[in-house]
């Protein structure tokens, strides 16, 4: 059994919460006392049934206003998989929350109202999913019951969407006609749509391959913490504790410590004191080296065969998450895996129109929820991959120097060759 993390973005009107409620209810993850609590709240949906959407909106303000503001995490499992749902809001003013939920997801469920077809919101959610590197999209054409389960309506929407999706980076797109309210094609195959031969939503979620989404090519091991027991038994022990964020490591591998450039050989890879044959992403392990090299938190062990140079300047797509606008020259703290650095936003190159995936030029400041392309310079050399090549080593956050809140989420699009930077120093 493995784990699938997926995101559903949308508002109550799309039937998003009903869809999640339906998945949880039909897979028997909703307990009697939780259902009772909803019944007691007295809210019914348009058909007079218990409103399953209330299962997902957890905060007082959300229940009062009937909207989703923040990401909520929900869990269910079948015999095949454990599922983690990031239930995110869909309105444009909550783009940052959707970006947050999308950052850890392997799959995105996009809801399209069969009566309305592909809308601005459909495009926005697809674009954000694609920008965040989510490899699998599922387009649920919902409320099929309200269009008489008509195949022609479904086909038209699929065609429209495919035309739009040419601009996206999505590797895998699945279309499913559903009625979340009635349960058609959610868990069981619908009997009302014989013309559809594909899987139900749950069948698809159970079988979509996710292990191949992990990058096992480029070995990256950021050191989080150094274990030094200082006991008689482990007198000279130095264990580098961290998570293999991509790639594979084993005993005998030649490694380079970045940014210092020292080299050594892996003596052992361990978990919980037990020796492992190899460690691969996303395992948390302890690595010991043959040589006593100087390594501390923030250093990264890479393999000699796929060595990567550090950089202090790069371009990235950035989702701005603060109410205070971002201006060129802004100084911020940057965290990339276990590395911290001071950073300056040298240039804002363009803004991305998330409703159309078009670039907007001549931008002098960036507002909350905007996605833009920036050039960043850091005080500390960073070991970065392009986000599209290695999702787990291409993302970073920006933190305000005074309030310490997270104000930006960035995805590296290109790194700049250090040798060409001499004019800037």
């Amino acid at each position, binding site marked *: 059994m493995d784990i699938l993390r997926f995101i559903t973005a949308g508002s109550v009107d799309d039937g998003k919460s009903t869809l999640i409620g339906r998945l949880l209810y039909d897979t028997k993850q909703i*307990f009697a006392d939780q259902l009772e609590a909803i019944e007691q709240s007295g809210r019914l949906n348009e058909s007079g049934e218990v409103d399953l959407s209330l299962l997902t909106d957890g905060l*007082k303000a959300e229940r009062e206003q009937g909207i989703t503001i923040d990401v909520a995490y929900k869990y269910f499992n079948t015999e095949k*998989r454990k599922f983690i749902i990031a239930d995110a809001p869909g309105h444009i003013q909550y783009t940052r929350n959707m970006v947050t939920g999308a950052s850890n997801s392997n799959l995105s469920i996009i809801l399209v109202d069969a009566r309305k077809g592909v809308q601005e919101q459909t495009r926005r959610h697809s674009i954000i999913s694609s920008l965040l590197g989510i490899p699998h999209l599922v387009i649920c054409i919902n409320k099929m019951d309200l269009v008489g389960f008509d195949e022609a309506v479904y086909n038209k929407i699929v065609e429209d969407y495919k035309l739009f999706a040419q601009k996206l980076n999505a590797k895998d797109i699945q279309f499913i006609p559903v009625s979340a309210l009635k349960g058609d094609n959610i868990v069981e195959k619908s009997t009302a749509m014989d013309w559809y031969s594909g899987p139900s939503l749950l069948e698809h979620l159970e079988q979509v391959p996710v292990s191949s989404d992990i990058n096992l090519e480029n070995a990256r091991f950021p050191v989080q913490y150094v274990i030094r027991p200082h006991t008689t038994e482990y007198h000279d022990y130095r264990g580098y504790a961290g998570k293999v*964020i991509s790639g594979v490591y084993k005993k005998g591998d030649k490694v380079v410590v970045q940014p210092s450039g020292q080299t050594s050989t892996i003596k052992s890879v361990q978990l919980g004191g037990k020796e492992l044959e190899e460690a691969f992403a996303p395992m948390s392990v302890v690595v010991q080296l043959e040589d006593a090299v100087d390594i501390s938190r923030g250093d990264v062990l890479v393999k000699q065969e796929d060595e990567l140079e550090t950089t202090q300047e790069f371009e990235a797509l950035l989702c701005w998450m603060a109410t205070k606008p971002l201006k060129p020259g802004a100084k911020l703290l940057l965290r990339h895996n276990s590395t911290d650095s001071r950073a300056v936003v040298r240039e804002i190159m363009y803004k991305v129109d998330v409703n159309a995936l078009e670039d907007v030029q001549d931008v002098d400041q960036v507002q909350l929820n905007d996605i833009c392309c920036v050039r960043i310079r850091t005080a500390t050399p960073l070991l970065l991959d392009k986000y599209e090549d290695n999702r787990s080593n291409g993302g970073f*956050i920006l933190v305000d120097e005074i309030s310490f809140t997270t104000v930006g989420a960035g995805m590296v699009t290109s790194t700049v060759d250090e040798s060409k930077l001499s004019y800037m120093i």
Partner: protein
Amino acid sequence: MTKRYLDYLDQLEAEAIHIMREVAGQFEKPALLFSGGKDSITLVRLAEKAFRPGKFPFPLVHIDTGHNFPEAIAYRDELAERLGEKLVVRNVEDTIKRQNLTEPKGKYASRNGLQTYTLLETIEEFGFDACIGGARRDEEKARAKERIFSVRDEFGQWDPKLQRPELWNIYNGHIHKGENVRVFPISNWTELDVWNYIKREEIALPNIYFTHERECLVRDNKLMAWSDFIHKDPEDVVIKRQVRFRTVGDMTCTAAVESVAFDIDSVIAEIIESKISERGATRIDDKLSETAMEDRKKGGYF
């Protein structure tokens, strides 16, 4: 080529270990809040995996209401001794005396709420900047929205509207003096995941998690372990039942469930069949209002 596939429990374990090491790497004075319940026992095993053969970079801290199950207390002491790790115990009783607090009275009297005062005192006494806890997002709807790194102000308060966005596996532990972060490494685990992990790791639990005969007082259709700490009205009756505990907290707010499950396998089978959620079955404190947990968290609760 060998197939490199990580089972879901291994994935959850790897994530939790990573979070614990981030705490060790980012903070100066962390602590692990240990209650003697299965979730914090799981945290201790994860800490062993994260830091052995080194010592834990934090003490185990128990906020003792004085109304805990003796079995859980004995387990706590034995565990700390066996691991050779530091255990800090602070008593709600002392806080009540020191701060001249009023003990809740009446039918639902519990020191559960007073734990917050002792916790905040303890955080201040030691200068803890991060407290690791065993809360899970599947437990309750407010918890479903809480971050893995949850920043609290100097009064320990959680502000659900001012939560920091939390992206990828990057955790922002930057705080001002006086603030602290509550960290929840098993946020993404469900009750069943915890039990399956306990089974896989062969972790011993306090025996009250398994079936035993116990004197219980029936309250609001729930079975409360009969003890001197429980308020008893003249019409209340004490009966003997075959029970186990699904959560282990304070005796005054943790109910037992009728059960014949005698080992981990039968407990797991029982949970799969259960129609009632973990907290719904066992917690009196959540039932007091629809947003009871959200309100308590805003006030500094775990």
